[in-house]
């Protein structure tokens, strides 16, 4: 029982980061139907920005997190403007290849800058390094902070999407971009805003994963990126609550499989879930089924 609870807590903190990354995938897919392969590298850049804020600038957790989010936001918008916008009317596969190009560019640009090796995050001190012991279960304050920050960001996102004018525009564009344009919505600005939100969340996830697992490297984004994408598909791609549920589900499954079965198979199980979902219910948990028009 203790082991189960311990795994549950580990799974929740891992799932939070997956959920944050998955939100970016799902929002971008919802709005321009693009699997944004560069998204997982924005997450990696976030981790590096956080690393340099903590080590070179000696900043605390909160300022580092905010700076990483800000830089990732700028990066996300820049990528959208430079690489994706000229291809708005091209075949979708061309945009996809461009996204892969951007992803490779970020990864190997980072390898050229800092080397392909692993860098380790500094040990945290003070409040965030404390541990809570409940019987045999250890909860580090880091895990509490990760879950807390993630939930806070998700509530903020729900507020933006449901209550603000920009959120309404986002929902309108993802439903029908042409009709939204006819209604006077600035579609390009809305798409940029979506990229901003997604990238900021990925940046936050990057810093928090760096703190949790201590080691970062330029190619760290690939596997969490794919798993977050699986989470987005599981929840129903294009659906924001779906991505959150999917993220936590994938995090929990991964931790449980490595705790109870064999850690070598944790990735395979995640992909098996993906395929089962796609075969049984391709639209995911919360996705809308689209009627085919002739």
């Amino acid at each position, binding site marked *: 029982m203790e082991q189960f609870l311990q795994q549950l807590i580990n799974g929740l903190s891992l799932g939070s980061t997956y959920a944050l990354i998955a939100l970016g995938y799902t929002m971008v897919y919802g709005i321009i139907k693009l*699997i944004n392969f560069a998204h997982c590298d924005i997450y990696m850049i976030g981790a590096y920005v956080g690393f340099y804020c903590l080590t070179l600038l000696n900043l605390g957790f909160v300022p580092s997190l905010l700076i990483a989010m800000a830089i990732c936001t700028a990066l996300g918008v820049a990528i959208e403007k430079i690489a994706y916008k000229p291809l708005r009317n*091209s075949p979708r596969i061309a945009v996809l290849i461009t996204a892969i*190009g951007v992803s490779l560019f970020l990864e190997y640009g980072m*390898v050229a800058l800092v080397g392909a090796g692993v860098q380790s995050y500094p040990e945290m001190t003070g409040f965030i390094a404390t541990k809570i012991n409940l019987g045999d279960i250890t909860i580090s304050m880091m895990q509490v902070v990760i879950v807390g920050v993630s939930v806070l960001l998700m509530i903020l996102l729900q507020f933006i999407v449901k209550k603000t004018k920009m959120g309404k525009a986002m929902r309108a564009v993802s439903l029908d971009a042409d009709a939204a344009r006819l209604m006077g919505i600035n579609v390009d600005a809305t798409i940029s805003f979506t990229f901003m939100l997604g990238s900021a969340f990925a940046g936050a996830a990057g810093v928090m994963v760096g703190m949790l697992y201590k080691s970062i490297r330029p190619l760290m984004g690939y596997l969490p990126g*794919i798993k977050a994408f699986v989470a987005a598909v599981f929840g129903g791609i294009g659906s924001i609550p779906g991505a959150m549920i999917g993220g936590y589900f994938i995090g929990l499954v991964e931790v449980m499989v490595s705790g109870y079965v064999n850690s*070598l198979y944790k990735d395979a199980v995640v992909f098996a879930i993906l*395929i089962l979902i796609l075969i049984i219910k*391709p639209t995911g948990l919360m996705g809308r089924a689209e009627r085919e028009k002739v």
Partner: protein
Amino acid sequence: MAAKAGKFFTNHPAVRKLIILIAIFVLVQVLIWTDIISAYLQVTLMTICINIILAVSLNLITGFTGQFSLGHAGFMSIGAYACALITMRMPTILGFLLGILAAIILSGIVGMVVGLPTLRLRGDYLAIATLGFSEIIRIIFVNLEITNGAAGLSNIPQFVNWPWIFFFTAGTVLLINNFLKSTHGRACISIREDEIASETMGVAATRYKVTAFIVGSCFAGMAGALYASYFYVIKPDYFGFLKSIDILIIVVFGGLGSISGSILAAVVLAVISTLLQSFADIRMVLYALLLIIIMIFRPQGLMGSKEITMDLFRKFSKGLSLNKKKERV
């Protein structure tokens, strides 16, 4: 009479194709003998040929049938391991051919298992499902004992040389080209154009999609077998997501739905990659930049869906002779 027969032979398209193929083969063989194509360039040559097989077979699935697959490297790895395991136990030419045959059959069977449930899915969902399958295949290879885990297999007997690889590459291109010109190929193309419309016209869409997928996977498996037998070391990591992307890049860069485009792109990308070798540190960065720039300025790829054909050359030469006539006037 003899002249007439001779003319028939040289005008017959199949004969002409054969003459061109033999010419290419002999030319390259002579270059290898005279050492103009050095041992280092031979590696590039083999890579180009293997990439041509992979790209043409993925083009059949993605470019002609319109089914977006991100897991081609998975089928390649099945072929590579099948051939490696057989030739390591039976290091003869017969073993090598058996290995190739096993590679084709095994990857075809896996292609069917993967294709039957997933080809009901459309567009991006299919891409994600094939990506998931190829990752699962990779993880299985990492964890199996017979495949020696993450370290992979080494000391695989080397059988592949220029004649073999030329035989298989030319065979692949010819077979897929002929498949596309058959009833089945036209059915596949009609599915790409409009699946609902072609179903209305009586094309069994799912059956043709699965057929194209299986044929594509068979050739990918063959390419994997050739890879294993030439480079004599294989690791599961080599056949990951990045390899699938590499193949897809060749196909899209050459033009979806153009066989000659895929061949051209395989050659051009290999040349670019070789030229970038001198910038080893930032090679991948430049490669990525080039990819983005090409996609922004030519999203339909080098050839679009056009083909380089003999007619094109004839038109070209006719155009030249017309120009000469004009000059005379």
